[in-house]
């Protein structure tokens, strides 16, 4: 009997130990960004009224109402409303204030990356035919958009540019009218967000909210309800927090709309609608004479074999004409195009195929980790999104003004979009094979992208982003460059790119990053 008791005791002690060991156990996930504190800007960048915008020009006049003076009856009524709102903050409003006060530019960047992840799904074929997502019919299958890396890069760019240009326009009016924030007019008012000396008309949160909404609703049209709600929160939170009046917000809303219209005018005519192509155009890409192609006006032997889809059934290449999309930092993709790769039969290439077979046949766990960390494939924010996340991780602790964050993200995302343009131009000019096109034994641990190999998109994006971010954050240069190298080589570990795809892609990206730096040096900011 004593023995039995011992057994029972032993049994339950073991059970308890195992349970506690396994479950320190709370299934809640803490997401990056959930602990960001309210933005408290030390350098308010009043000179931003003179910074050079990306799309709008000095000639663009935005008709925004002249604000009422702070001693007017109309303004005093607004002020009283703000105080009432502040005194009656609901729990839901407190949460909205906590969320958005971390910075509207950062929060919208996060929202957009989540949307890209949600829509980053390739359509499934139906009876051997792959349906094309349609902006005209976005709720039907396949959902619109398929936010693959080029689509994502372009989306990030237009939203970031809209925010930056709208803020520059807002700063012009802020500096022109210099109407102070409610708590500067009434010292008895204590807002629930950090105070700033920045004039408050028009509201920068409202201008960001509306400019973003008016662009992003075209990029993710099925999300209109969600985006409407988010934009309304972003516009209003400083009103509830005692830091903006109704007319500050109304002016920001009007200005945001007017600026976004200019941005969308560019977006609608940037050739994106032609990037998908059609069966005849895909055929003409695949059926080009493989022994001679015209490159830069010269008849040159550039390829002896063509890339082909390894999917069953064969899928058309992803956005093969994205190289014709209107770039930010160069006139046409041919101007920055990298040279042709050697022929597929060249010893250099054959050696690299062998090398890749060796690498992928003997992957270490560390190489797998690098491949998977940088994979950024289906269902993720894509490589441009990953670099936005890296940038936001650096920017958030710096507590920069909204307009400076917007400018830095605008240039980063213009560079990433241009990286996509040059990379897709190079891919579809040379139509170079994927490693598994060369050697069927080469297996991948990441999805095999359905477009030509040379050059690597990840390498191009990463070269561009790391180069430009190193300019903004010189002390982080070596870390950023290491990240770019990891992202680049990750595609070899993944089994989907030869070394030359990655090395030339990185150089190509660095070239684009330098163009962004050249622009940054002349926009009046640094």
């Amino acid at each position, binding site marked *: 009997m004593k*023995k*039995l008791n011992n*057994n*029972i005791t*032993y*049994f339950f002690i*073991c*059970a308890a130990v*195992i*349970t506690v*060991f*396994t*479950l*320190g*156990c709370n*299934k*809640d*996930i*803490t*997401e*990056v*960004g959930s602990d960001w504190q309210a933005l408290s800007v030390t350098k308010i960048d009043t000179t931003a009224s003179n910074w050079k915008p990306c799309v709008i020009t000095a000639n663009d006049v935005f008709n925004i109402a002249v604000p009422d003076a702070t001693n007017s009856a109309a303004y005093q009524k607004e002020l009283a409303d703000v105080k009432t709102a502040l005194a009656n903050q609901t729990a839901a409003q407190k949460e909205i204030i906590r969320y958005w006060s971390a910075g509207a530019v950062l929060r919208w960047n*996060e929202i957009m*990356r*989540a*949307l890209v*992840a*949600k829509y980053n*799904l*390739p*359509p*499934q074929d139906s009876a051997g035919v792959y349906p094309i997502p349609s902006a005209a019919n976005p709720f039907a*299958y396949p959902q619109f958009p398929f936010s693959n890396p080029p689509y994502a890069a372009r989306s990030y760019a237009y939203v970031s540019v809209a925010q930056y240009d709208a803020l520059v326009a807002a700063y012009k009016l802020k500096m022109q009218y210099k109407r102070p924030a409610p708590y500067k007019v009434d010292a008895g008012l204590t807002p629930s967000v950090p105070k700033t000396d920045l004039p408050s008309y028009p509201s920068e949160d409202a201008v960001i909210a509306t400019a973003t909404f008016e662009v992003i609703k075209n990029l993710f049209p099925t999300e209109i309800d969600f985006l409407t709600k988010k934009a309304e929160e972003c516009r209003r939170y400083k009103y509830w927090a005692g830091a903006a009046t109704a007319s500050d917000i109304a002016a920001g809303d009007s200005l945001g709309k007017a600026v976004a219209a200019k941005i969308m005018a560019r977006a609608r005519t940037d050739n994106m609608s032609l990037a998908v192509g059609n069966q005849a155009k895909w055929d003409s890409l695949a059926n080009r004479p493989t022994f001679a192609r015209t490159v830069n006006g010269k008849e040159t032997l550039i390829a002896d074999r063509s890339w082909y889809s*390894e*999917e*069953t*059934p064969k899928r058309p290449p992803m956005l093969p004409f994205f190289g014709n999309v209107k770039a930010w930092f160069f006139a046409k993709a041919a101007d920055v195009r990298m040279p042709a790769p050697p022929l597929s039969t060249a010893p250099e290439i054959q050696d690299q195929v062998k090398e890749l077979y060796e690498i*992928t046949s003997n992957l270490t*766990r560390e190489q*797998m*980790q690098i491949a*998977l*960390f940088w*994979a*950024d*494939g*289906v*269902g*993720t*924010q894509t490589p441009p999104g*990953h670099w936005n*996340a890296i940038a936001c991780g650096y920017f958030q602790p710096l507590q920069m003004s909204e307009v400076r964050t917007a400018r830095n993200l605008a240039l980063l995302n213009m560079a990433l979009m241009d990286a996509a343009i040059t990379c897709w131009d190079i891919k579809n000019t040379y139509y170079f094979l994927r490693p*598994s096109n060369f050697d069927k034994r*080469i*297996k*991948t*641990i990441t*999805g*095999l992208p359905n477009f030509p190999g040379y050059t690597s998109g990840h390498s191009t994006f990463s070269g561009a982003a790391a180069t430009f971010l190193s300019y903004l954050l010189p002390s982080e240069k070596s870390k950023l460059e290491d990240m770019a190298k990891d992202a680049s080589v990750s595609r070899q570990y993944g*089994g989907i790119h030869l070394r030359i795809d990655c090395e030339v892609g990185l150089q190509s990206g660095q070239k684009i990053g330098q163009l962004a730096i050249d622009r940054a040096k002349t926009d009046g900011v640094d």
Partner: protein
Amino acid sequence: MKKYTHSIIKRMLFILLCASMPSFSFSQTLNDGIFMPKNNFCGGFLLMQDKFENYWEGTTQRNNLNMGTMTMNGIGVMANYGISDNLNVIASVPFVKTQASAGVMAGMSGFQDLTVALKYKALKMNDLSANIIVGGSIPTSDYVAAYPLAIGNQSKTAFGRAMLHYLNSKGFTATAQGMYTLRSNIKIDATNYYTDKNVFSDEVAIADVANFSFRTGYYTHRIAGEAYIEQTKTLGGFDIRRNDMMFPAANKMIATRVGFTGFYRIKPLHDLQVVANVAYTLSGRNVGQATSVALGFMMAFDWRKKAVTESK
């Protein structure tokens, strides 16, 4: 003695099922109601294969021409020791290898999770017994978790199982059991992932698992067979979206399986136990429609007798 040898064979099912990779099937099962006597040890190994071509993407059944047939082959080693007549300790670890017959996706291989469990006979009334089993598992290697052909999910588990077992003197047997498995969150090699929403984290919530089964059959000393039906479901998780990748660690998984286990003791080979199992997934959600086969070999040793002899 005769009784416990049956249990040895049946115990191999435990390895069979605990080795199964999550996308094929899941659950860890300590199925039988019979105990090893004190100081008796049994050890052996089991060869197993799970394969499927069709799977459920949410509730929609489909195949995938870019994956073809997905196969998991494994070999498990196990050991069972009688601490007392009423308390056994059981341990197992499998080595598994996965592959897809079409497309370019690489398979994975490695040692999966070590499972250790204690089985306690709480109640015995004539032919009926009530047993409680508790245990847990930990990954034995840093295998990749978030991958369609992953060999496991890296979650640490703790499980508890209650079982009613009937075995009469004519050899007729029936067992009903329910099990709950707590599963810890995992870290993956990525910065964000999509469930039914995007998550900016490398940590993934892993849902707990419930399992119920009923088995019935006939035991004799030399040969035995038992048919079973079981359902396993995660208490949470998300559906695979249309044409998205499988994420076995975090998907909402339900599987209803039927199977049959037969065993035989080979007299000329010192009563070496041979066990064979076949199982098939009837219906499911975010799991493969897997066919599983296994073949195992086990040997029992009575250390108590030996000890007694030596002391003499």
